[in-house]
């Protein structure tokens, strides 16, 4: 019934995730699956455990129980940085830019497998590092241009406006060359024009082959960009389906609006 039309092999699949904080079961036996090449939405009322689920997937919070397969391999025991190195990059609900670094440095930092990030190679491989920096800089400028931040490249990231920070955070995530990006409320606190832009960027990069898992409260965003939607309520899976199916699902409406 749940026919994942684009690919039979999910890039991410998590099953039986559990996490309690004290007596509160924030995530209680939740599962999720993200098909390769899809834009998958994750919705649910406030306090449903969406962000906690993101934290469990990226292991910023260790799950009490459950299994997470990324690209066919279990990642629930890896450190967050190892998960990021494997190509699963997350963003944060409130955009977190590195204020006292330039916009360009924010981008360059995100490049993976940099020779120059090893202490000793600073001394022994300066040529190779310079070359990598040039390549990364070109790529970073390209991405910054595509989100309209190229003119700000040399400004402090802390001097950006709220919307620009959101863009920078997504651009920075792209810079890691991820296989899957977890976006936590990309449209929160952003003006309608920019929301439209962000949606365009996401669908654009999706067509370039990038997979997204998006938490979002803005239903227009979810309905317009997502291939599939998962609904979470009180830490449990409530429903799963195409946007159209979810819109008419009585359980979902009940969870959001009450009986």
């Amino acid at each position, binding site marked *: 019934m749940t026919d994942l039309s684009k690919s039979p092999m999910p890039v991410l699949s998590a099953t039986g995730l559990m996490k309690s904080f004290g007596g509160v079961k924030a995530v209680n036996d939740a599962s999720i699956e993200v098909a390769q090449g899809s834009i998958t939405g994750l919705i649910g009322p406030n306090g449903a455990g969406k962000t906690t689920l993101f934290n469990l997937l*990226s292991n*910023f919070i260790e799950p009490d129980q459950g299994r997470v397969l990324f690209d066919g391999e279990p990642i629930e025991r890896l*450190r*967050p*940085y*190892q998960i*990021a*190195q494997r190509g699963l*990059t*997350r*963003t*944060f609900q409130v955009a*977190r*830019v*590195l*204020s*006292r*670094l330039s916009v360009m*440095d924010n981008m*360059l*930092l*995100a490049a*993976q497998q*940099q*020779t*120059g*990030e*090893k*202490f000793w190679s*600073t001394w022994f491989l300066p040529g190779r*590092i310079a070359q990598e*920096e040039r390549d990364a800089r070109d790529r970073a400028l390209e991405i910054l241009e595509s989100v309209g931040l190229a003119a700000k490249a040399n400004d*402090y990231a*802390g*001097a950006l406006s709220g919307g620009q920070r959101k863009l920078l955070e997504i651009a*920075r995530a792209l810079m*890691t060359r991820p296989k899957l990006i977890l976006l936590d409320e990309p449209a929160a606190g952003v003006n309608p024009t920019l929301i439209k832009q962000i949606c365009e960027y996401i669908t654009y990069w999706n067509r370039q082959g990038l997979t997204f898992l998006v938490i979002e409260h803005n239903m227009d965003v979810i309905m317009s960009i997502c291939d599939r939607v998962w609904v979470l309520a009180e830490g449990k899976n409530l429903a799963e389906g195409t946007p159209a199916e979810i819109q008419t699902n009585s359980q979902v409406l009940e969870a959001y609006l009450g009986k």
Partner: protein
Amino acid sequence: MFNYLFSFDTGIIGYLVFLITSVALYGLFSLGLNLQWGYTGLINFGHVAFMTVGAYSTTLLSLAGVPLLVAVPIGAMLAALLGLLMGFSTLRLREDYLAIVTIGVSELVRLVALNEGWLTKGAFGVQSFPLPLENFRPTVATRIGMVAVITVIFGLALWKLGRRFLHQLRGAKNLQKQMVAIGSGLLVLLGIRLWLVSAIALYNFRSSPAANGLLFVSLITVAIVFWALERVVKSPWGRVLKAIREDEEVAKALGKNVFAYKLQSLMLGGFIAGIAGAFFAWQLSTVYPTNFEPLVTFQAWIIMILGGAGNNAGTLLGAGIYWAYTALTRDLERLPIAADQVGALRIMVIGLILMVLMIWRPQGVLGNKDELTLGK
């Protein structure tokens, strides 16, 4: 006070040599802290522990017959090893806890030095250990060579300072900026004075071989360490440190092994402080555990904050300001109050200076003000 600026009397030169060496040694020590706090955001309140290890290792090894050129790196590596131990036990802690644990470790190291008399000679102190170049009797040609070396070091520093001065002078539109430009102009003049003093001291090397030798070695060391640090903090490696300082969760989310980088920062900072420990011991020429009280750590904090955290040149300038202050307030001893009251007064005044600085220029003398106006 004007004697310091114009006199070429032997006594004054001797005292200025002591001051320059102190600036170099405290600058070196604070550069280590600046790497840890200014660049990585690690709150290290136990920095003196690295110095203790460096000082004791170097002096005890050299007393056992190990050449100084070997003893110092071993001391520095042992200090880095202490950084590794400290890091493994504390870096997973939140910042404020890290601060408490590090201050505890530094006291622990000092108490070990006090009580393990079989190794460290305890309260009796380590005495009459070899000093660098103390038996060196250079020929005229060698002395001219030494003068040439420090001329290059001072030349590079003054060139940078001078360019900054010209740059500021051109951009100076309001009174405050003009003051800053005048300030850096005066610094250039002061630098020339210190270069002259150093050159005279090295040329008359035999007047005091131990002090002049220490001057020469400390200037070279601080120049090399400064150059190396500038290089690493501007590398992609340094970029990761700055990212950790700003927000370590972001660094993790972008695939950086934050713990490993913090450890490296703590160890490298410890290594540098270990070298500074050797110089500290040589300048004191007798090493007692009481030389390594937590106050020394806070002197490094004062120096770093004065000059501007996250700025290596600023840290060295901070060391200069700190010692200039110490020299100028020596005259307070002429006041009709007891010596311990003078000491307390000096500390009170430096506290006041720090408070004024925090209000007027919270980023430190060379820090970048723009950075403070940024939102998180």
